[in-house]
């Protein structure tokens, strides 16, 4: 493993940053701008809305269940951070790193599953994409985040399954971790804006 790292670092002009990580950083920067655009549109439409927000007659969002779900998502980020720490410090075997990474992915899957159940209930209560700006923005913003969560879970599972003593330091695993941190980090902002304000 050490020889692999040394080989990468010995290349002249190499910064020691894998291409996958750099590519993921740039991708996440564009994603941050994308979410900022959605948030901006939501804030402007909400400010221009005449009358109460949420509009009367629309179902209320499941604030409490989603708060617990937010804790589950944050816990998954913490577990992944522990996996990264274990990998960095070389504590235990790669098996521990893999187990923690899979646990983080499983917690992420629980988050998406609970979100799905709540959306099904909201749809049954009549909150749809076409029921007005409230429903449109809810499904657009939260749905976009959910799509990112699913993609990040798949990436994390794929990278975790490929873990071995060398791959733990590879770009793909670090890139998948970054992706998941982004998904975890952006959610509290969306939760406060969409559910609480």
């Amino acid at each position, binding site marked *: 493993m050490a020889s692999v790292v040394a080989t990468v*670092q010995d290349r002249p002009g190499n910064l020691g*940053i894998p291409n996958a990580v750099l590519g993921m*950083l740039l991708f996440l*920067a564009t994603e941050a701008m994308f979410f900022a655009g959605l948030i*901006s549109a939501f804030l*402007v439409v909400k400010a221009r809305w005449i009358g109460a927000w949420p509009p009367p007659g629309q179902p209320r969002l499941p604030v409490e269940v989603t708060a617990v779900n937010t804790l589950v998502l944050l816990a998954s980020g913490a577990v992944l951070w522990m996996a990264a720490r274990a*990998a960095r410090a070389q504590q235990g075997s790669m098996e521990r790193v893999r187990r923690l990474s899979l646990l983080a992915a499983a917690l992420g899957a629980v988050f998406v599953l609970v979100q799905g159940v709540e959306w099904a209930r909201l749809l049954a209560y009549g909150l749809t994409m076409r029921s007005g700006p409230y429903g449109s923005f809810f499904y657009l913003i939260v749905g976009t985040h959910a799509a990112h969560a699913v993609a990040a879970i798949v990436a994390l599972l794929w990278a975790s399954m490929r873990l071995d003593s060398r791959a733990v*330091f590879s770009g793909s695993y670090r890139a998948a971790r970054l992706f998941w941190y982004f998904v975890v980090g952006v959610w509290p902002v969306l939760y406060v804006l969409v559910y609480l304000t």
Partner: protein
Amino acid sequence: MSLRNGNSRFSRLLMAAALVVWAPETAWGCPVCFAAEQRQLTAYFATAVLLSLLPFVLAGAITWWIRREARRSATNASDGPALC
């Protein structure tokens, strides 16, 4: 260029300057910023600040991170092979 053309161009420039000086309210670029309620103005201002500053914050954060990784990589290379 004839004198007549020069005069015409000068008078057009003079008219444009006079418009800028004496009729600035017609030159405002934002069609909604001055006819909205306070909460709408706040929303426009907040989102304008967010969308204007975020690219700089992102570019700065990525540059800072790359520099930090490069320094760490250089330190590790001088100390021996790094683990991460």
